[in-house]
């Protein structure tokens, strides 16, 4: 462990301090933000301070007994509504899972080849870029009916028998994501 204060400079501490103070350029007080002598016309900091420290606290709404009863009923109804929605969603998912499970159990009975090929997954799960979440309004051009597959030439028989559609479906032709790229070099490694 090196001691940072073990070296000695040519100049003494006091002389270095004097030098530093003469070289340093000090701002006029009016330019230092937040100081009391700051530019009077620059009200931005005053506005910010007012908003931060002087906004009235939001108090709880003052409700009469009737108001409160009404508010609580609305609150209970809302919670019930949400609960029902959640239950519906859960039931739908449970039904889907039951079907999935049943299908895979039946597939197992058919033998190892089909079952095993169905159970393997990709090491890195990727989803296509075209899979978009719903928005408020649809796209202006509507549905794209004019999709053409990449290799539309039927005479070229270079493609082998139908290969795994999951591996082959690249998100978009322009930006193929490579998952075989080398990871960034280990920082602990000594660079050659």
């Amino acid at each position, binding site marked *: 462990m090196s001691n940072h204060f073990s070296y000695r400079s040519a100049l003494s501490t006091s002389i270095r301090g004097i030098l530093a103070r003469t070289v340093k350029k000090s701002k006029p007080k009016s330019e230092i933000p937040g100081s009391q002598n700051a530019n009077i016309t620059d009200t931005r900091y005053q*506005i910010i301070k007012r908003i931060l420290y002087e906004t009235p606290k939001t108090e709880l709404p003052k409700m009469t007994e009737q108001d409160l009863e009404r508010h609580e009923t609305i609150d209970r109804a809302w919670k019930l509504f949400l609960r029902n929605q959640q239950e519906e969603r859960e039931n739908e998912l449970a039904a889907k899972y039951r079907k999935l499970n049943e299908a895979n159990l*039946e597939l197992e009975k058919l033998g190892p080849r089909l079952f095993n090929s169905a159970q393997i997954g990709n090491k890195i799960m990727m989803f296509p870029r075209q899979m978009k979440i719903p928005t408020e309004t649809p796209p202006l051009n509507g549905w794209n009916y004019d999709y053409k597959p990449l290799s539309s030439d039927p005479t070229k028989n270079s493609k082998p028998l139908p290969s795994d559609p999951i591996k082959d479906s690249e998100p978009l032709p322009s930006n193929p994501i490579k998952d075989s790229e080398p990871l960034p070099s280990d920082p602990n490694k000594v660079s050659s």
Partner: protein
Amino acid sequence: MFLQKLRYRIFKQNKISFFSSISQKSQSDILNLLKSDKNEVHEGYRIVAGIVLSRTPIILRDPHPFEREYYLYQQRLEHIHAPPFPVDFYFKKGSVAEKKWREKKEREKAEALLAFGSRKTKNKTSFEKIDEEETIDSSDVSSDEEEIKIANRITSADLINDVKSLDRALQRTLYLIVKKPRETHSWQFPQGGVEKTETLVQAANRELEEECGNCMDVWFVGRRPIGYYKYDYPKCFVKENIEYKGAKVFFMAAHIFAGQVKVDNKEIIDFAWVTKQEMKNYVHTEYYEAVKDMLSEH
């Protein structure tokens, strides 16, 4: 260790075989000769891969009336109890934006008073504009700003109820069903036999391309089947093909992002994109009962 062995085994299966290097025509000839041998069969049932091709919702759901009312109520409470808006913080004194803001506030004040007066006003106040269809107010748009175009949530396909259109029912999930050239059980999900050299997904992909054309951007969700349906062939059919007494269908999930179905007029003669509820009107009740649990309500 087992996983490595498994992967190697599957890799070997998928290797380009000698068979595929032969020309297309002689391939099909050989295939026709080996027709009985190429299909996967188990206990007399033909193994079939079905495809549940879905077009997921494109727009958010319409809010439930209670939701709408509740959000209005909460917004009103917030407005009443909120601290005053710091205009001088957001708008520079004397700027154009500040002027516009003050004008807008004046208008809203006037409208708010009207709303409390009579409920039958045609012009909705800012309070009630939350979840409705957005239309640009002409007074808001200045001459130098570009007008933002927004598409309608209810499309023309909705109005004419075109079942072949993929622009219909944008809030719902649409499923592809195809019509086979027979009288009973004609509408169903596209399906086809699995061959002995391929996996379920590969079979599903191939069958979809054969039956519905390749002009669709389709993505299969993983390799696992999502549903299973076993059925026996009708007795008249069984007499011809003694080897099969029925079929076991394994449904594979897939999504469509672009394109449209092209009927081949050999195996299928018609198609439709329907919601889960509408499917009842097309598909046989027995089939619907077996299949409905795989599908989404929304």
